[in-house]
């Protein structure tokens, strides 16, 4: 099929299957005892086969039907990444229900909002901690009829008529009356049926549930096959929240289509250790992860002593030159070979990227310098662009054709257009069906002729590669009438290992300023190495030397921008924010409007 001309009527199929669940059933039958998932139990990696994958999901699916879940009913999953997450996800989708993930950092109130918004009857929770959220707010979500808990730990004496445990659910599925009901239900799932409901993180207003169909996801798989090479033998590491469309695409749909093995990280804190253990072949991360890797290496370098750091600098120089040269000379080739053996190879092994064939970054802008840095150490990092409403990926660079600074060319079949206001419009089979029960919001998201309004400002190069310059609603119009897109300035600031996030301010103001969240670990280390006294986080942000350090980064950044884009002042946020705070999205990005509100006093100080 010629993907660039897909009409809404065309069937999109991968290996002859046009829904994710029928493809999944076929793959499970095909791979049988092969390893599908690996997960740590008491510190030891355990393997789980495709057979287990199918049997578990089948039992859950049958049990869900016994509980009265029918086609089109949403089901909520509130858990950290683990294999049961995926079993429940696929089980629900297979019987035509609509799985939707809830972030473990969400509060009880946010859970109640989601439960009411989608009217789910069944809620899966990971453990006692998440169960307590339901218990706390259960009066506000009367629609939840059954809560299924994965872990019994700490709940030995607990019982509630609405709560059951996963093993009880399996048992219920095992003794279900018509065992072939599951397969029958699976066959009736149509490509246009919802595959999942993804709640957008909602930086403006309450979260909205975007409906992604099987066809949307099949398109991602078919188009992805041409842009992103997955191999049957690939090892992957799953650590971003599965509630997010990107992780679901990469760790659920893609492995189903391509037979890769998914390894679950123990927790978000152990990602770097798990990376070393797994040595993934492909890896999808967010800029924050790449920034962390970079700053870890730079800190190690500063501790390495004169010989080690010299060797590292030299290797980086050679790696960089080699990566940039179109036609490297013999000397450079030799030098790079030495650098590779002496430094770079070890560095990659230490980071867990020894086998990395392709690593990607998405979900937020990443600074081009960072991509080049990874290129120099031999880690092929490519940037892509997509949003929940485009089913995950819309454009992506490839390792062979990596246009640094752009987010790559559209997937074959995806059409891009820039409207007269500069907003990026997307069309094609990747575009979602609409928001759950919010027709007016859905209507607002589409143009009259059916293009998806992304809310991003972009430009398309002559080669067809897309560059995103910022968000429509983030555009700052200074009192002088200049339009400024803050994203570029912010991503330059974040390149510093000492800055974890930054928000540029200046709408309707005379000049630009900036609120900065410092990286606790690295700044603490900086302070300790220089004997700068501090006690808690707030006093760290008040230390003059720390302010000077960040001031240096700010003025360094200023040099790269025009006069009107200069940051005249900055303030450091003096509380240590966590994902539970309203100012941060679950992916640890600062939310502009919340920050502006909560730190108004700091901002006013600067004007």
């Amino acid at each position, binding site marked *: 099929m010629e993907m660039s001309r897909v009409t809404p009527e065309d069937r999109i199929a991968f290996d002859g299957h046009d829904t994710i669940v029928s493809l999944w059933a076929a793959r499970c039958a095909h791979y049988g005892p092969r390893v599908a998932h690996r997960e740590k139990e008491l510190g030891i990696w355990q393997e789980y086969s495709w057979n287990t994958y199918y049997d578990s999901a089948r039992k859950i699916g049958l049990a869900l039907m016994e509980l009265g879940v029918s086609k089109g009913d949403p089901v909520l999953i509130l858990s950290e990444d683990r294999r049961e997450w995926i079993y429940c996800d696929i089980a629900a989708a297979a019987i035509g229900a609509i799985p939707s993930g809830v972030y473990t950092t969400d509060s009880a109130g946010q859970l109640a909002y989601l439960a009411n918004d989608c009217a789910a009857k069944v809620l899966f929770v990971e453990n*006692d901690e998440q169960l307590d959220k339901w218990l706390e707010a259960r009066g506000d979500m009367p629609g939840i009829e059954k809560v299924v808990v994965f872990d019994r730990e*700490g709940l030995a004496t607990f019982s509630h008529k609405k709560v059951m445990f996963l093993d009880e659910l399996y048992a219920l599925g095992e003794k279900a009356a018509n065992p072939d009901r599951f397969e029958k239900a699976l066959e009736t799932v149509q490509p246009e049926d919802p595959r999942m409901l993804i709640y957008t993180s909602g930086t403006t207003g309450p979260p909205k549930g975007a409906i992604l169909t099987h066809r949307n996801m099949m398109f991602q798989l078919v188009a992805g096959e041409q842009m992103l090479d997955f191999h049957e033998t690939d090892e992957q590491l799953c650590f971003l929240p599965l509630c997010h469309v990107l992780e679901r695409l990469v760790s659920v749909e893609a492995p189903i289509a391509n037979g890769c093995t998914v390894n679950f990280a123990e927790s978000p804190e152990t990602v770097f250790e798990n990376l070393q253990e797994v040595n993934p072949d492909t890896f999808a991360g967010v800029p924050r992860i790449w920034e962390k890797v970079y700053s870890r290496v730079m800190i190690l370098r500063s501790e390495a002593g004169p010989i080690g750091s010299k060797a590292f600098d030299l290797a980086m120089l050679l790696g960089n030159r080699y990566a940039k040269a179109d036609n490297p000379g013999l000397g450079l080739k030799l030098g790079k070979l030495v650098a590779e053996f002496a430094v770079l190879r070890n560095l990659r092994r230490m980071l867990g990227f020894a086998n990395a064939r392709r690593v990607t970054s998405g979900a937020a802008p990443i600074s081009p310098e960072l991509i080049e840095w990874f290129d120099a150490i031999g880690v092929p990092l490519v940037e892509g662009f997509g949003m929940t409403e485009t089913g995950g990926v819309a454009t992506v660079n490839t390792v062979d054709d990596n246009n640094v600074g752009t987010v790559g060319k559209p997937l074959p079949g995806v059409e891009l257009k820039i409207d007269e206001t500069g907003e990026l419009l997307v069309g094609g089979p990747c575009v979602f069906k609409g928001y759950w029960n919010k027709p007016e919001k859905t209507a607002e998201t589409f143009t009259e002729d059916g293009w998806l309004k992304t809310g991003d400002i972009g430009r398309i190069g002559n080669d067809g590669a897309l560059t995103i310059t910022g968000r429509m609603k983030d555009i700052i119009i200074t009192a002088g009438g200049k339009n400024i897109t803050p994203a570029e300035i912010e991503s330059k600031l974040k390149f510093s290992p000492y800055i974890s996030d930054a928000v540029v301010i200046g709408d309707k103001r005379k000049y630009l300023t900036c609120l900065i969240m410092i990286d606790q670990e690295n700044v603490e280390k900086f302070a300790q190495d220089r004997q700068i006294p501090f006690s808690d*986080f707030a006093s760290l942000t008040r230390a003059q030397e720390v302010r000077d350090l960040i001031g240096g980064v700010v003025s360094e950044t200023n040099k790269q921008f025009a006069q009107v884009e200069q940051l005249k002042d900055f303030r450091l946020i003096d509380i240590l924010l966590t994902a539970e705070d309203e100012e941060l999205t679950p992916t640890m990005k600062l939310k502009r409007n919340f920050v502006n509100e909560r730190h108004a006093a700091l901002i006013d100080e600067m004007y």
Partner: protein
Amino acid sequence: MTVLSVRNLETFYGAIMALRGVSIDVEEGEIVTILGANGAGKTTLMKTIAGLMDPEKGQITFLGDPIAGLDPDRVVGRGISLVPEGREVFPYLSIEENLRMGGFTRKGDLSGDLDLVYQYFPILKERRRQAAGFLSGGQQQMLAIGRGLMSEPKLLMLDEPSLGLSPLLTQEIFGIIARLNRDEGVTMLLVEQNAHIALETAHRGYVLEMGRIVMTGPSDQLAASDDIQEFYLGRTDAGERGQKRWKRRKTWR
């Protein structure tokens, strides 16, 4: 006036870094408490200040003079006295001999100080000829505090005075600590596991975790913090189930 000021103190046990850059201040006339779980580095901090351990890095300034790395007897001579964890009285010496040992570094007459100690701890006077080993735990703690006072310290450091004492005795000891501070103006640095009573007694506090200060503030402010309530005061916000195994994430604010 700042009595004690510690800056970026780093102390090691062999390869293990017990203090990872601690900075604290103690002002004249206050009681400052240091809270922290087992192994947080509280005792190490006390020992480093007292000169029992040498810091790898950092400054300790006492009344304006650097004292880091001085021998313990010099530190006592400068006016810092440590009431060690677990009391450590001399069991075969009499109570009065124990007290006199506390004033060993001082020249001159000790009788005034003995009277002061006996006034605060009358039971010690009653039994002053007996061997200290025959005292009960609470009385030994009183003796240890009394011994600490004998050197007329400008800073008294108390390492877990409630260790192994009944709740009632703990109340009594802390009552005396508060009185010593109020009436005699003794400046104190207090390490304590019992966060309840420590925050009640002290003016200010620091929270030490993994060898780092994570939180600081006036005692009432600390006592009101959610993290302190859950992790140090054992508030059981058990919720619906009446039991809770998981812990909230610490934010220290």
